[in-house]
């Protein structure tokens, strides 16, 4: 991408709150950016490393609850709690990663174990009082930058923009690093990677830690944005599905795939809501259908589709 396009992109992104006067559409952009962050997080482990997690809700929920409990129950500064949320979720990543990778779990076995961990955490958090139990946790409305609460959506937008851009930057950096190269090698052929001196356990642990921490930050932002959490919202399988859907639709293992997928999915979801109404469960049917169609017809996602349209035939010679 040329420098001019990059500059235009940055300026446009910064100007969104000034250009878009509808709270609804600024909110839409916030959702896309938050989704970009978590999709990128999943992409670090699933896209680059080929380890398909079906339980990223474990990290999302850990981040959300850590931020909320530290801030509300213990009075910790909201930004500190936000950082702690990332660390806590990263630590959960180390634990889940060690327990599953140490014993060589791959493919669907790894996916199932991550799902199980998320479910265990959902039930555990629902049964402790300081986390609000099954009723959930309200964060009191205390507008102020120190509390990470903003009077207008613009404030949230800029925080979300920083998170989304940071996530893209992580992917960009990863693609140019040794860890990135080794993760891709593990994804393509784990035995060959081991034969070339790649410490696969260590690489996968690093990936799941980064991925978990990023997702945890997403959860912490969610808590501060919506000011309400319950175990189902934070640790439910719905979160895990949403997190993995965007990178698959956009393009697995690419830098921009998570963003493109997040934007496309949120747009499609919004359209579906307008056309089909807000019937419960309908969005899940919609996501499911979309996932099947993407995997069947667009294995490289929208990015792959774009590439194929830009360079017809030549690539296959």
């Amino acid at each position: 991408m040329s420098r001019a396009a990059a500059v235009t992109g940055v300026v446009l992104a910064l100007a969104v709150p000034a250009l878009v006067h509808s709270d609804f559409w600024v909110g839409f952009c916030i959702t896309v950016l938050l989704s970009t962050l978590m999709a990128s997080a999943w992409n670090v482990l699933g896209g680059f490393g080929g380890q398909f997690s079906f339980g990223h809700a474990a990290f999302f929920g850990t981040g959300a609850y850590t931020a909320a409990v530290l801030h509300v129950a213990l009075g910790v500064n909201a930004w500190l709690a936000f950082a702690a949320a990332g660390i806590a979720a990263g630590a959960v990543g180390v634990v889940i990663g060690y327990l599953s990778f140490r014993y060589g779990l791959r493919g669907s076995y790894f996916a199932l174990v991550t799902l199980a961990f998320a479910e265990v955490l959902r039930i555990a958090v629902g049964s402790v009082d300081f986390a609000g139990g099954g009723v959930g946790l309200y964060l009191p409305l205390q507008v102020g930058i120190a509390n990470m609460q903003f009077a207008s959506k613009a404030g949230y937008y800029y925080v979300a923009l920083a998170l989304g851009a940071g996530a893209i930057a992580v992917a960009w950096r990863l693609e140019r690093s040794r860890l990135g190269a080794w993760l891709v090698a593990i994804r393509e052929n784990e035995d060959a990677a081991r034969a070339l001196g790649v410490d696969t356990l260590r690489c996968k642990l690093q990936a799941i830690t980064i991925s978990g921490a990023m997702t945890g930050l997403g959860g912490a932002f969610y808590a501060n944005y919506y000011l309400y959490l319950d175990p189902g919202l934070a640790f439910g399988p719905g979160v895990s599905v949403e997190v993995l859907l965007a990178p698959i639709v956009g393009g697995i293992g690419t830098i921009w795939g998570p963003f493109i997928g997040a934007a496309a999915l949120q747009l499609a979801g919004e359209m579906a809501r307008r056309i089909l109404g807000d019937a419960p469960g309908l969005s899940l049917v919609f996501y499911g259908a979309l996932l099947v169609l993407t995997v069947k017809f667009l294995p490289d996602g929208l990015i792959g589709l774009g590439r194929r349209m830009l360079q017809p035939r030549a690539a296959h010679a």
Partner: protein
Amino acid sequence: MLEVRGLSKRFGGLLAVSNVSLAVKEGEIVALIGPNGAGKTTLFAMISGFLAPDAGSVAFAGQNVTGWSPHEVCRLGLARTFQIVQPFGRLTVRENIAVGAHLHSAERKEALAKATDIGMRLGMGPLLDRPAAALTVAARKRLEVARALATNPKLLLLDEVMAGLNPTELGELIPTLRTIRDGGVTILMIEHVMQAVVSLAERAYVLNQGSIIAEGAPAAIAKMSSVVEAYLGHGAAERLGRVAAGAA
């Protein structure tokens, strides 16, 4: 440089490798030959850390590496190739080689430059930007060697890198391997292609049904009756001798 002592591996009721000892000295090219199913690849897997032996020990570069994991063995300077080639299919040839180069180069640029260099040396220059999945069998074998070489090994274990190559490709690869050895890399190779074994290896071990049955210069080994029988069946050497005598 490499010292294997009394190595054994059992798969259920099958003793795949039985009490095998062998040694490779620095700067040598040593061949490991034997009929299909003799246990050659299993032996390689144990030396390179992919399989834990049931008994015996592997010493490499002055250290006991028995039971080490593959990446640790590789870090010490022992790299292997796979008989069934294992390319990173969706990566280009250069990126494939760079994975190996990253072992000693943290920087992406440096690893890619080193990969380019090794690719050129192995005659893969025009293929560097091709995806590995699009390569011919011969090129994939070459890629296996290139990737292993990128880890700066002291000892290369080559598992049938000549198999399936046509005479022209063989004629290209044999001098390449000699150049690699002359560059200071010791080579232990599993090989069925006797032309390659005879022209490259100083010594050869013959493995049959899990045990070493002969050791010596390749040309001499090819004439040993025990070796001929391992390949052609019991009594074959005698029958061949009679046929040869009858023709004379």
